[in-house]
């Protein structure tokens, strides 16, 4: 190929085309180099930009943790609540304002460890919210303690001998609880992730996306994943996309040779909490 006449340099600029959807005055954000959370934010912003729902109708709710800071970087109505409680907050909001597209973005520790009770009950009720759960296998913000998603045997600041407990298999849990949409992607699968997010916006009822995300500075530093590169290698070598995977086998062990299964596993239509409530309004005489 002849490129002799070509003089192109990278252009140094100060704004990105998606800056209207982030709180750019707060950038650079607090996350470590190589952290996957910025990519989660990017995918969410792309999904919003591509969704047909007006931006002003999107609301983000986060709990506490590194992931919890996402709410503070999105230029949308955004609420950063207490540890473990964003789903309950989202339920209250969505029930009184069904026209809002309410999305919870928060950490694994936040949503399924301290907040596990709200998680299972919101799915059972099928409240029409999206939950983008960032699984970095660790409590990042508090100093890398193990949690209910830490793989058996993985090291952390409170599991020096290896995590003594098996982790949740979240897609299986959510599917068993009856969630109408369940997906899992990594931050390397940016386009698939953003597509899944767009689908989640359309789902009537509870939509869960488990996002496997690098935490090189926390989890990684205890488990031979010290750099973003190491995570890329892990994902490239171990991820298998299988939309119809047997979710019984979807637990993540991070042991060599054991895959991380990804996909849009569950997509089904079913009545949501809103439909149930309309029935109540009819029986109470409020609606015909």
């Amino acid at each position, binding site marked *: 190929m002849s490129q002799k006449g070509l003089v192109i340099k990278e252009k140094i600029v100060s704004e990105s085309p998606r800056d209207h959807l982030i709180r750019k005055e707060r950038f650079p954000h607090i996350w470590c180099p190589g952290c996957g959370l910025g990519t989660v934010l990017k995918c969410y912003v792309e999904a919003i930009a591509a969704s047909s729902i007006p931006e*002003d109708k999107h609301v983000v709710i986060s709990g506490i943790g590194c992931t919890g800071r996402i709410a503070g970087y999105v230029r949308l109505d955004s609420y*950063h609540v207490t540890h473990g409680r964003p789903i*309950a907050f989202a339920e209250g909001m969505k029930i009184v*304002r069904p026209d809002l597209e309410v999305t919870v973005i928060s950490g694994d520790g936040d949503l399924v460890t301290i907040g596990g009770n709200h998680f299972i009950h919101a799915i059972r009720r099928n409240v029409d919210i999206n939950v983008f759960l960032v699984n970095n296998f660790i409590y990042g913000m508090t100093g890398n303690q193990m949690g209910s998603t830490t793989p058996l045997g993985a090291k952390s600041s409170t599991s020096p001998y290896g995590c003594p407990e098996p982790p949740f298999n979240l897609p299986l849990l959510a599917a068993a609880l009856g969630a109408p949409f369940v997906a899992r992607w990594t931050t390397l699968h940016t386009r698939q992730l953003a597509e899944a997010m767009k689908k989640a916006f359309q789902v009537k009822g509870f939509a869960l996306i488990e996002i496997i995300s690098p935490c090189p500075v926390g989890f990684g530093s205890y488990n031979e994943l010290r750099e973003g590169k190491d995570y890329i290698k892990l994902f490239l070598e171990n991820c298998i996309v299988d939309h119809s995977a047997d979710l019984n086998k979807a637990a993540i062990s991070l042991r060599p040779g054991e895959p991380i299964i990804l996909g849009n596993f569950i997509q089904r239509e079913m009545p949501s909490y809103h439909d149930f409530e309309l029935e109540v309004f009819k029986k109470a005489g409020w609606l015909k």
Partner: protein
Amino acid sequence: MSSELRLLKPGTYFMMGNIACAEAALIAGCEFYAGYPITPSNEIAEHMSRRMPQLGRHFIQMEDEIGSIVAVLGASAAGVKAMTATSGPGFSLMMETIGLSAMLELPCVIIDVQRAGPSTGIPTFVGQGDVMQARWGSHGDYELVVYAPSAVQEFFDLTIEAFNTSEWLRIPVVVLSDEVVGHMYGRLVVPEYDKIKIVNRKRYNGPKDQYLPYSCEALVPPFVAAGDGYRIHMTGLTHDERGYPSLEIEDSHKLIDRLVMKVRKNSKHLWKYETLYADDADVVVVTFGITARSTEEAVKRARAEGLKVGMIKLLTLWPFPEDPVKIASQYARRLLVAEINMGQLIHPVREVAECPVAGINYPVGYAPPPEYILDGIRAAV
């Protein structure tokens, strides 16, 4: 339209305290109720589960009290009035979120129908052991308002007042009722609606680029709801006027000062109390809730015996009504504080009193009979 599909009509009723509370919430404009079953508050939830859908409003039974009050805040962030009701153990679970309500400045109303404690205590029996918890239960510096009814009518009135105050100041407001007031049947007069004061939070609708969600210009910044298009951020982290997390001393000072001052500076408007024979009394009993009923009878009997005794019934417990208590202490020889606990409200009374203060303490479980309080009075005189 069936009468069930409306608010409780103006008129006179004979009604249970907890039901009067629920009907008051409806009249106050409560659009969202979330709760978790617990004795002796259950009648509120039961009544709301029937009545809210009749009015096209939302009732949800959550998985626990934490979820309940957090969902209430979610609804409040969407711009509607919302409440929950509970008792001791559930109230304990709500403490962290009361702080969140104060910090995000999301109005909410919490009804605590007190029962005997500590711990599970005696679920079906009365107590007044949550006085200090209601004020200081969440960590950090904040202020809130706590009302305490002693009768069905007061439970009704103070529930409406609680909504009004929480909307006005954008704070959590607690109605600290108790098992007896919750379960007693009593007379309730519902006034004509135009005689009932209803306050709605001040909303902002100015230019989008000028809105500061936590502006310190006034003590209470105007509110915008999710979906209003202002793209606001609210965080439980200490924040600046934009609502963004801040580590600056100045931002922290300004915020905490405002959170506290919006209640403190309005104390005098928030104090509600009634006095009986307090003007010429040698001994004044300070009390609240169901204990005020026994005390009233005891004071009347003491007067019949020729003892110069009066009482102050506090309807606002926090901010503590300092002035009436202080003034009483300047004329009386002694103040007594009657409560169903081993001594809680006595502490703020002591703080302001200029005469000796003693407690008439009745351990949790039962409402003190008038004789018990009369004995305390006689001993003091």
